[in-house]
């Protein structure tokens, strides 16, 4: 039996002079899952990752990876983790292959093993062609992938990805997402920080929303959305002529007037999922066929706004 959490941080506090970067943050994830740490610029994401990755000591609180304390046994923790920092830490004067071989050598692989591992990873990450080119000639997306590959040389159990897609265009972002999904399929536990709500939604099993160095909400994407309430039911009758009838049924169950949604659908706010079930039952009883019937949750953006009273980083920075 391994520990319950692949990594666990409890009540971390970190100050830089006057700035309190972390103010009692707690983060954890069971093995084989992805924890999304979602927060705007300056929320403390990078600082938390650096403490978990043994690069920084907390002023208070504790953190452990696979049950091993990061402050007391940093060397042991380093054998378990891979880190892809917010700013790609590839060596630009070395080629892609040299970057990975060096890390392999530092992880005590024999020369042949290190080369084989590097070649394998470069191929996996679509960098085989560019293996012998200096990293300074790589595009932003290629650097990110090389950086990711570098954190996997040692086959870590836990991987920390600090804003792995910030600055990438949407297609490149999808590439990185695919890599993360593959890692998880291999049983790796991932901590992923992000400022993108859809990224956390797409990848994370659980999300910790962070602001001013603390977790202000935690749960699955769906749970977080529910925190804000304001769910709506959308009904799209198969026969547009029966739209008014469908709207009347929905309004009766919800106890609120229904609103049109486009030309051939109607929506109504509901308080809980039970109302949704009741609407489904009554539509069925009335023999009213539908092409779409859904319980819509608010976007994570709205969740963040409700929780913090301000928008996420992108809007604030803009």
């Amino acid at each position, binding site marked *: 039996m391994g520990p319950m959490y692949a990594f666990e941080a409890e009540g971390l506090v970190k100050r830089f002079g006057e700035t309190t970067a972390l103010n009692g943050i707690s983060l954890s994830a069971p093995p084989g899952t992805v924890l999304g740490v979602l927060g705007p610029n300056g929320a403390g994401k990078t600082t938390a990752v650096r403490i978990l990755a043994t690069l920084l000591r907390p002023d208070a609180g504790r953190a452990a990876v696979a049950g091993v304390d990061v402050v007391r046994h940093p060397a042991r923790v380093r054998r378990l983790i891979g880190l892809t920092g917010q700013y790609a*830490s590839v060596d630009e*004067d*070395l080629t892609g292959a*040299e970057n990975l071989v060096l890390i392999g050598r*530092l992880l*005590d692989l024999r020369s042949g093993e290190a080369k084989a591992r590097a070649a394998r990873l470069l191929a996996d990450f679509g960098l085989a062609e560019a293996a012998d080119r200096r990293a300074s000639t790589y595009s932003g997306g290629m650097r990110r992938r090389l950086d990711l590959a570098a954190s996997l040389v040692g086959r*870590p159990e836990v991987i920390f990805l600090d804003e792995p897609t910030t600055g990438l265009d949407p297609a490149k972002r999808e590439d990185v997402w695919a890599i993360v999904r593959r890692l998880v399929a291999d049983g790796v536990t991932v901590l992923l920080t992000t400022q993108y709500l859809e990224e956390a939604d797409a990848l994370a099993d659980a999300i910790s929303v962070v602001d001013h160095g603390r977790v202000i909400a935690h749960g699955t994407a769906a749970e977080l959305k529910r925190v804000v309430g304001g769910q709506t039911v959308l009904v799209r009758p198969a026969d547009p002529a029966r739209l008014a009838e469908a709207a009347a049924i929905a309004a009766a169950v919800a106890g609120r007037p229904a609103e049109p949604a486009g030309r051939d659908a109607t929506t109504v706010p509901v308080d809980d999922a039970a109302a949704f079930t009741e609407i489904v039952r009554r539509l069925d009883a009335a023999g009213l066929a539908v092409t779409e019937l859904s319980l819509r949750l608010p976007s994570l953006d709205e969740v963040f706004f409700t929780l913090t009273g301000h928008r996420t980083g992108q809007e604030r920075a803009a």
Partner: protein
Amino acid sequence: MTTTETAAPSRAAAPGEERRRTFRLARHSLALAGRSIRKTLRTPEQLLDVTLQPVMFVVVYVFLLGGAVAGSTGEYLQFLLPAIMVQTVLFGGMATGVNLNTDIKKGVFDRFRSLPIGRSAPLIGSVLGDLIRYVLAEAVLLGFGYALGFRAHTGIVPVLAACLLTVFLAFCVSWAFVLVGMLMREPGGVQGAAFVVLFPLTFGTSMVTPKDTLPGWLRAWVSVNPVNHAMEAARGLMLGGPVATGVVWTLVSGVVMLAVLAPLAVAAYRRRA
């Protein structure tokens, strides 16, 4: 996943563990020294301070001061060259501090810090890797000196000994630049602070003019300055004359600087967030 392979089982240190650790540190440092050498060779503009710059110093000193100090440029070259070898390798060490500072700022070292390697390995690797710069500098200086008419009066072994001794001193002093590199926020600041260290060391010497022409207070500093002793030793080894005092002073002060500066530099590296 190969969890069992990578997980470090908690076990008591086996006999020989200590030795294996030292061995690993050496291996990791050498791997990182290889990285540093590759980088140096790929960015030739980084070699200007150990190629063009010493040549220019020789030209300036020999033709500007030679006549006044020694009466003839030929004689002055004999006097100057062994000493300027020391200045060149010491100046060459500044780049180690600047490069380390840059690496840390860029985040390259974050990767090394997250690996299970000795804390000091990246620093040792950089310092060792930069030894190649000193070797190059001395080759350039000797070659240029010979072209201008410099001749060693001893033999190949003493000349090599002079080279080794000066490289050794540069190796020890470069830990001061590593320390500065860890303490400064910006690479530019490293350069500035390094100059403050270097000036009294390299110019508080008999490099450009014999010691007996200097005022008393300066002469007092010159006679204890390890860099001056290295210059005197290099002169002795290349031109003949007493070497024992210079060599011993250089070795002892080098070891002392190393013993003080290297741990300070590593501690500063650890502390740096």
